[in-house]
């Protein structure tokens, strides 16, 4: 097992420019040409098509469901009402888009028609749609506190806050030092309230699963990035043995951004129940409206922050209060929102006295769920907005104030005994600012235009930190045609992990990356990886396991070539798949397979880490506001990001640019609007998704390498950590441009115009 040190080998191999170079994404050509086959492209011959009757009420008892009119339709093979589904389904619907009944039929249109034929009666129940109201003793009950429907690893909690009595999904508190004294010592104390929007992932490919039963084993074909957890949670909900759930990834994984990290109660258990009933594969695909209302959005969250600082800008105390909306089911890891909001301030700033309280509440809203840097994105928007307000109150420069309080390598955070490892945050600020200044524009001179700039710092850990040790395994197989097949726990949802795997194999073995095939993950594979491609762990821990296997393969090939060429193993160099001795004699690696191998040579690798290294970013935005319309245009964005080590700089730029897009949407555009739980814009005509036209004209990525000692080649995560600083950088620029602080994104043109033209300002 590799314990991952950046060693001599790395330095030696750098010259070959595989790890560290812009290898083109190995799946790009297929995807651009339309040849890639995603989950929704799969339609097995004997498959039945599911259609689901969804609730248009936000809270109701199901009194009666008459399926007979649906069953009478030719082609309908099965109809089930919710109480007859497998597992922990009950007879109540709890949000718009919740499931009442389902059909399996020989064609999708027949299934849709049959759904429309179902007769049913619901008795409406009182509903609650605000997380703060939901925890009150008088609120309607959505679920009992700390509901256990086998969804995620919850922990026991006791709540001392007497205001929090009902509908509690999760609760966290933390006190560090002496917050009261810290606030007393402060020269300035600033308080601010902030909220964050329900944002939908808007994945291009809507959720689609094919469920079939092989005897007592449920086989699901779909993209589920966290396969181990999904297995456990689906099994737990269906009340079967986790070993009896198998997940097969389609040839090409669909995009996720967290939207496909975990199972959805409205998808897999429904398809599994139908498939069990008819004993045939059943395909359930959501349409776009269901994608909005029957999966999950980013948790809507309310923050109250209070910070005390000395006159010269040293933070003496901070208090963070969080109320987050879990929605109707714990689909969605309210626990993680709370944990990440709790820890992030302490990961970024030196805060000697700190108090935190967070509650996640069940409501009759669309469930919250995983979404790129869950919790950290929400908290960082609030915190970095707040710190700008703190700096302004004390008359301090925004960057100087932050730099004075930032953590650094070796700093021991007060809530954990683990010192911070690699920490490039100060470099991120310095290099980001320099680049940002280079991109500064001349003034327009147009009185209708006002401009401003903003900065925000953010962080997110690599790996989820859910367990004390994270580990992964990999198997590499060299075959007689000279290709290496990689079996790993990774799911390439577009982030490029398959390319990184090919790079690592090529880098270590000397076999060209073009001859490395990365197989889609399947839980029928012979090794364990519980978490899959979530939490920016793929390159860090799966990449490390691949590297361990690749080193083993290279050593084996060296030994064999040494025997064949009659030289010492140290003297062998493998390049372009040919093992050569110093005298120029060479032998293709596939000819090193021996009769005892069968047709292939298989090696195994693994890696583990007890660390959860933090990846830092400092982002800068310049915005322009049209004062006559309130339109906000992000002109320039610099994402300066500490990635540990850049294995593929071009793909990192892709990640950063994608984060900028998601962050602009969070700040200025995207929100699933609910009116007492009823969606107002659950379609792509009314829900704003940005295009390249809303992207900044100038986008620059600064890649900072802090050399994470526990990561392969020094690498740590980039996909999720690049997300949190984006929105606050833009919101801080908007505040700078307008002189007004907007605390409740997304901020549309009308909101800006209304504020700029309000009487108070004139």
């Amino acid at each position, binding site marked *: 097992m590799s314990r991952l040190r950046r060693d001599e080998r790395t330095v030696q191999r750098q010259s070959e420019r595989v790890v560290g170079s812009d290898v083109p994404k190995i799946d790009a050509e297929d995807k651009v040409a339309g040849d890639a086959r995603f989950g929704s492209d799969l339609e097995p011959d004997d498959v039945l098509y599911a259609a689901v009757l969804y609730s248009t009420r936000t809270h109701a008892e199901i009194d009666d469901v008459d399926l007979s009119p649906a069953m009478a339709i030719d082609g309908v093979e099965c109809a089930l009402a919710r109480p007859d589904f497998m597992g922990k389904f009950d007879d109540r619907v709890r949000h718009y888009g919740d499931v009442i009944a389902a059909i399996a039929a020989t064609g999708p249109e027949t299934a849709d028609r049959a759904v429309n034929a179902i007769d049913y009666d619901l008795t409406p129940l009182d509903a609650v749609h605000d997380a703060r109201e939901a925890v009150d003793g008088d609120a309607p009950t959505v679920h009992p506190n700390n509901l256990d429907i086998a969804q995620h690893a919850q922990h026991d909690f006791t709540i001392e806050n007497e205001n929090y009595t009902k509908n509690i999904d999760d609760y966290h508190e933390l006190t560090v030092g002496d917050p009261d004294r810290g606030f007393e010592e402060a020269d300035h104390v600033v308080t601010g309230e902030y909220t964050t929007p329900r944002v939908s992932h808007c994945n291009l490919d809507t959720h689609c699963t094919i469920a079939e039963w092989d005897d007592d084993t449920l086989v699901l074909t779909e993209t589920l990035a966290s396969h181990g957890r999904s297995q456990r949670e689906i099994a737990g909900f269906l009340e079967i043995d986790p070993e009896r759930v198998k997940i097969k990834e389609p040839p090409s994984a669909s995009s996720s951004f967290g939207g496909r990290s975990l199972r959805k109660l409205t998808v897999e258990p429904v398809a599994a129940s139908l498939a069990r009933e008819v004993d045939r594969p059943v395909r359930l695909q959501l*349409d776009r*409206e269901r994608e909005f209302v029957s999966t999950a959005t980013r948790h809507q969250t309310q923050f109250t922050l209070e910070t005390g600082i000395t006159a010269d800008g040293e933070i003496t105390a901070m208090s963070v209060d969080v109320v987050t909306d879990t929605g109707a089911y714990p689909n969605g890891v309210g626990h993680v929102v709370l944990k990440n909001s709790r820890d992030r301030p302490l990961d970024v700033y030196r805060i000697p006295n700190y108090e935190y309280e967070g509650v996640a509440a069940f409501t009759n809203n669309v469930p919250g769920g995983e979404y790129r840097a869950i919790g950290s994105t929400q908290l960082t928007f609030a915190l970095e907005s707040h710190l700008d307000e703190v700096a302004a109150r004390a008359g301090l420069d925004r960057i100087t104030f932050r730099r004075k309080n930032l953590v650094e390598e070796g700093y021991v955070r007060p809530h954990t005994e683990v010192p911070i490892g690699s920490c490039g945050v100060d470099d991120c600020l310095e290099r980001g600012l320099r680049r940002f200044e280079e991109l500064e524009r001349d003034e327009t001179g147009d009185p209708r235009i006002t401009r401003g700039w903003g900065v925000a710092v953010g962080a997110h850990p690599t790996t989820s930190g859910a367990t004390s040790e994270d580990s992964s395994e990999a198997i590499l197989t060299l075959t007689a045609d000279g290709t290496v097949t990689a079996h790993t726990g990774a799911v390439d949802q577009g982030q490029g992990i398959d390319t990184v795997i090919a790079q690592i194999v090529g880098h270590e073995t000397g076999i060209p990356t073009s001859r490395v095939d990365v197989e889609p993950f399947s839980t029928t594979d012979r090794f364990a990886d519980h978490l899959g491609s979530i939490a920016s762990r793929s390159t860090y821990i799966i990449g490390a396991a691949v590297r361990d296997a690749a080193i083993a393969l290279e050593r084996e090939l060296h030994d064999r070539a040494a025997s064949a060429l009659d030289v010492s193993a140290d003297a062998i160099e493998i390049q372009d798949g040919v093992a050569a001795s110093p005298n120029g004699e060479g032998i293709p690696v596939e000819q090193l397979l021996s009769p005892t191998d069968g047709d292939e040579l298989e090696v195994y690798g693994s890696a583990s880490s007890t660390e959860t290294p933090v990846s830092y970013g400092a982002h800068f935005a310049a915005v322009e506001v049209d004062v*006559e*319309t309130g*339109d906000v245009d992000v002109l320039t964005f610099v994402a300066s990001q500490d990635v540990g080590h850049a294995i593929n700089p071009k793909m990192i730029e892709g990640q950063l640019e994608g984060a900028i897009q998601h962050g602009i949407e969070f700040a200025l*555009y995207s929100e699933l*609007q609910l009116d007492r739980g009823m969606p*107002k*814009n659950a*379609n792509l*005509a*009314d829900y*704003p*998704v*940005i*295009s390249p*036209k*809303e992207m900044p004209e100038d986008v620059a990525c600064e890649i900072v390498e802090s050399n994470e000692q526990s990561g392969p080649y020094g690498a740590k995560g980039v996909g999720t950590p690049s997300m949190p600083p984006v929105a606050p950088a833009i919101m801080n620029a908007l505040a700078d441009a307008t002189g007004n602080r907007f605390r409740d994104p997304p901020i*549309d*043109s*009308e909101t800006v*115009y*209304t504020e700029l*033209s309000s009487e108070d300002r004139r």
Partner: protein
Amino acid sequence: MTEYLKPVDRESARRYLDEHRDSAKIVAGGQSLSLLLRQGLLDPDVMIDISDVDEFSGIETGPDRVSIGAVTTYEQLESHPVSSTVETLGDSVDVIADRQVRTAGTIGGAISHADPSLDIVPPLLCLDATVRIGSVDGERTVPLEEFHDGYMAADLAQNELVEGITFDGSASDWESNYAKHSRVSGGWATVGIASRVRTTDDRDAFTDVRIAAAAVGDTAVRLSSVEDALIGEPTDRETVADAASNATADIDPLDDLSGSAEYKKHLARTLVERSINRTVDRTGGVR
């Protein structure tokens, strides 16, 4: 089950519609219709797809008339010279939805759909366009301004369909523009303003002014209060700004997802001013 008919000539299209009347929906490009079908707001027994009818296709330019067939796509209009000579048309098509929609969506479909937010309508109102309507009884024409007679409502009998639109495109001394505000590029218009003006030879006074607005009421409308305030007046920015403030006299927007009525009124004034100024700038006049 819905019956899907695909006539290949005008006569059969008219005949099918006459047979099925209000149990049928016409499919031109399907870009608005398919949303309504998907949302379950429409469930027609018969769909009559006229996209293969040659007589309804293409753009004809004569010495003084431009005639656009109903199933002409936005993309075809965009790549036709008329989009350069009549700039408000080109401006408008440029900001309609996305390339996929522009490739399939049609001019006739838009006009028949009668959504007050459609970007193509204000430019056509500024061109005093006439709608050509067909049925088994023959053809009649109606000015576009009268054709849309209520929210998503059009002056069409049950057996009539839009076959094309015609306007006078001969005058080369007009300049025009379309200015749009939307939540995201390609999104529904919060407000859209088309302007088309003619000035004196020395370009310092307006001789003809046509202004029309989308997304400001039940139908797209001409803003005659602004037009009247400009005809014969100088083209300077102050005069334009004063006239633009009249924009709210002719509009009656509603609060909806794209914005409040108050904001839309403000945007209408702002965009009218901007659109006219851009149009005047296009005349090349010194101001």
